[in-house]
């Protein structure tokens, strides 16, 4: 890939991903409270004292799952990290997922949930997976024993039962709206609805419709870029990045995979 198209991808993401999250941080965060079951299981099954990273940790929702391991979370958004760092005993820093500030081959696990799909070219998505895998401990034998494990989670193209209705054959590169209500009235309104929202999934919590309650004229819509993964594409990217998939699947509108670095 030429350096000009690489820097184009970067500039594009700066405007259509990073800038948006920075602006919607606290509102976004108030809708992010329920961990996905696969992620929760992965984190809870880790041995006590395991050391890991959460690449693109957002508000640190997954830092709250298991206090017996130590996670260094990172995200591009300072506003989200301010929230994430309150989850003890873990830690959170501001960093880019393609330039991570961690020693290589030294972590027991990594998670990167709903992050890689924000990169705008195939090369950058593979590079993002590689940047995660290279932080993990290498296997001590050819069967992959002793290697650190990464759980990667991306939004699926195939979600015809979701409200968005995307499915096979649809355009994979999409702009998804985030509607933020004007004024500080919104936060009060939302508290009252807390109970009702509890059963909503992540995707539903993210939907513009949820915020439509008492909106006047000041609602602001932000568009975020997403690459929707099709069946098999995440596994493909992991292989391209030098990893081996040990388990993968589909969970509520998302593709996920657990991968290890191949022995070098």
């Amino acid at each position: 890939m030429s350096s000009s198209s690489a820097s184009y991808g970067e500039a594009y993401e700066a405007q259509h991903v990073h800038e948006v999250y920075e602006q919607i941080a606290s509102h976004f965060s108030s809708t992010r409270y329920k961990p996905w079951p696969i992620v929760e299981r992965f984190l809870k099954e880790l041995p006590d004292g395991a050391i890991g990273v959460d690449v693109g940790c957002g508000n640190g929702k997954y830092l709250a799952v298991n206090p017996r391991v130590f996670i260094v979370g990172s995200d591009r958004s300072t506003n989200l990290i301010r929230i994430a760092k309150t989850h003890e005993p873990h830690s959170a820093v501001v960093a880019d997922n393609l330039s991570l500030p961690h020693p290589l081959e030294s972590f027991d696990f990594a998670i990167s949930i709903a992050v890689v799909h924000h990169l705008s070219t195939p090369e950058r998505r593979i590079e993002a997976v590689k940047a995660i895998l290279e932080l993990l401990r290498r296997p001590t034998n050819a069967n992959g024993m002793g290697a650190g494990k990464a759980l990667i989670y991306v939004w699926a193209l195939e979600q015809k039962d979701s409200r968005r209705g995307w499915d096979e054959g649809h355009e994979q590169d999409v702009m998804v709206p985030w509607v933020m209500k004007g004024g500080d009235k919104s936060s009060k309104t939302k508290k009252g609805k807390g109970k009702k929202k509890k059963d909503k999934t992540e995707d539903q919590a993210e939907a513009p419709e949820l915020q439509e309650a008492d909106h006047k004229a000041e609602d602001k819509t932000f568009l975020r870029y997403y690459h929707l993964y099709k069946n098999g594409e995440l596994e493909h990217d992991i292989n391209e990045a030098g990893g081996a998939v040990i388990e993968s699947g589909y969970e509520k509108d998302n593709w996920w995979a657990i991968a290890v670095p191949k022995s070098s």
Partner: protein
Amino acid sequence: MKILTLNFLTCARKLCKSSNTAFPLHPQDAELEIVEQDMNVEFLRNILPRLMWEELSGVVGELGLPALPPTVPTLESLTEKKLKAAENDPTGMNVVEVEVPSQVALDLHRLLLETCVKEGKLVCGSCGHEYQVREGIANFLLPGHLV
């Protein structure tokens, strides 16, 4: 940012990843603060074998903090047995033996988990790049020409 976290951070620049002078980062002009946390001996016990003791000792020295023990404390040294009055015993005559965090554990907890860099910078020993820490948050975003 906790001192413990420095054990898991290095320079974000690709060219520094293979350099052995990039780890650990060196705190400079650091303003420290204590952020109290619940004592958890089990967590310390788990984390202890994973620490780069010598490098961490260096950082602790650079920050002007009380030195770490010269070698990694044994896991046994993190707790001690203490005699305590038995609960629900108004006479105070009966004592039971309980395991409590030792001074070693309390000191490590204070230093690694409660002592935080609030303001200052983290400097790479390989390329010299300085990463800012503001309000306890370290920022590793690189300017375009260094990516």
